[in-house]
């Protein structure tokens, strides 16, 4: 399993990259592995207001749909439109071109449940 050192992680298997008040969110390598082949991604609209714990996107594999939950309260600043045509990017490049959404956040400190790479690695090991 691939875990990037410069990112933070949530218990719902999202990765989070914080740059000032812009926060990029995607799902982890572990999550994409568990979901299997992603064939469809439903993303929010730009300017949507998302609350902590809300489902802001849906990843659909051949067999099932899985919600992606927001670890933060913020406004959608950017969505990765490439995923609409090429959902498999979530499988092939979960930390790169498979990113999902950029949020603009007022209170970066309030982001919930973030783990360091070491903590996330430990967390996943406990799930197995």
């Amino acid at each position, binding site marked *: 399993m691939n875990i990037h050192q410069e990112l933070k992680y949530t218990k719902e298997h999202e990765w989070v990259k914080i740059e000032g008040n812009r926060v990029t969110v995607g799902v982890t390598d572990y999550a994409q592995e568990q979901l*299997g*082949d992603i*064939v*469809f991604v*439903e993303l929010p609209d730009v300017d949507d207001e998302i609350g902590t714990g809300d489902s802001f996107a*849906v990843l*659909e*594999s*051949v*067999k*099932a*749909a899985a919600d992606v939950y927001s670890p933060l309260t913020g406004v959608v600043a950017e969505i990765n439109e490439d995923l*609409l045509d090429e959902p498999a990017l979530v499988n092939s490049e979960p930390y790169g071109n498979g990113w999902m959404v950029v949020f603009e956040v007022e209170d970066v400190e309030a982001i919930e449940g973030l783990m360091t790479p070491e903590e996330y690695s430990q967390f996943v090991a406990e799930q197995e």
Partner: protein
Amino acid sequence: MENLNKTPLYQQHVDAGGKIVDFGGWALPVQYSGILEEIDAVRNRAGLFDVSHMGEIVVGGEKALDWLQSMLTNDIGRLVDGQVMYTLMCYPDGGVVDDLLVYRFNAQKFLLVVNAANAEKDWLWLQQHCWQGIQLENTSDTTAQLALQGPEAEAILQKITDIPLDQLGFFRFVHEANVAGRSCLISRTGYTGEDGFEIYCRPDVAAPLWEAIMEAGKDKGLLPAGLGSRDTLRFEANLPLYGHEISPEISPLEAGLGFFVKLKKEADYIGKQALIAQKEAGLKRRLRGLEMLDRGIPRAEYPVYNEAGDQIGVITTGSFSPTVGKNIANALMDTSYIEEGTTVLVGVRNRRLKAKVVKLPFYKREAK
């Protein structure tokens, strides 16, 4: 996984990297390398499935044929020795007990192959309605089953059997075949819409047979294939799944399986009168194919609405279809909306997405 039933191929699945899930009480692989890759293999080369969880019941006795005629909707009297037939078994009200394959060895001996999830229920139902002099034997625990499916299936299997497979017709079987030195039954049947074979054997020879077939298929691109791909393959080819397209509440006529329901058959089988009445009264709902026009994937149990917003049906199976390259579904719908080209709306979570009624099957392999 400890409490689950395991097939004799469990270790093969684990060794091949299968992702094991609880499938109706059975520990079976949902996928190995990936569902899309496995679907591609079956459509273009070959895939090998473990379907040992299926149920098998042997029917014997002088009146075996007559009794089966009284239990099953298709005309079993048309079967010749060595032939297989798809049929349904119904309740008195026309709902479906199960769909199954009937193998005829001779007029006094048949094999029924039933769905794993229904095996126990079917067994009780058959016993309950059994006639004097009919012998029933549940051989599920002593039978393993492998399904080799795909355009290369014949070439692969031919490497390890002397049976001239090019002479084995569709829905025909050879009872005492020898595959890689093991005794088994081979039928030209399957659940994927591709050419292929189902191979029945004793549990103790299942693993060596699996290995021999995988070895024979190595240079043909054969992959082990899991239940995830099996479900999508059968759906693309419009093969029904019990509990989805057919059930105690959905009759075979509603499911579009009228071809396998012989209303004019002489024998008065269970459900016949109800099905005749249903046909005469006119069907109120009917299974149809949907193709999504808006972006989104329809899934089982999602509601279907007309453009005025009234619910007119429900999705029975839905998925992205890699072979067709579209998001498609089966839907059981009010017959006012089943004409090809009709636009309907599918409730996908909190949105209502446009879809249109299309012809089934979604996928049909080209004739040889």
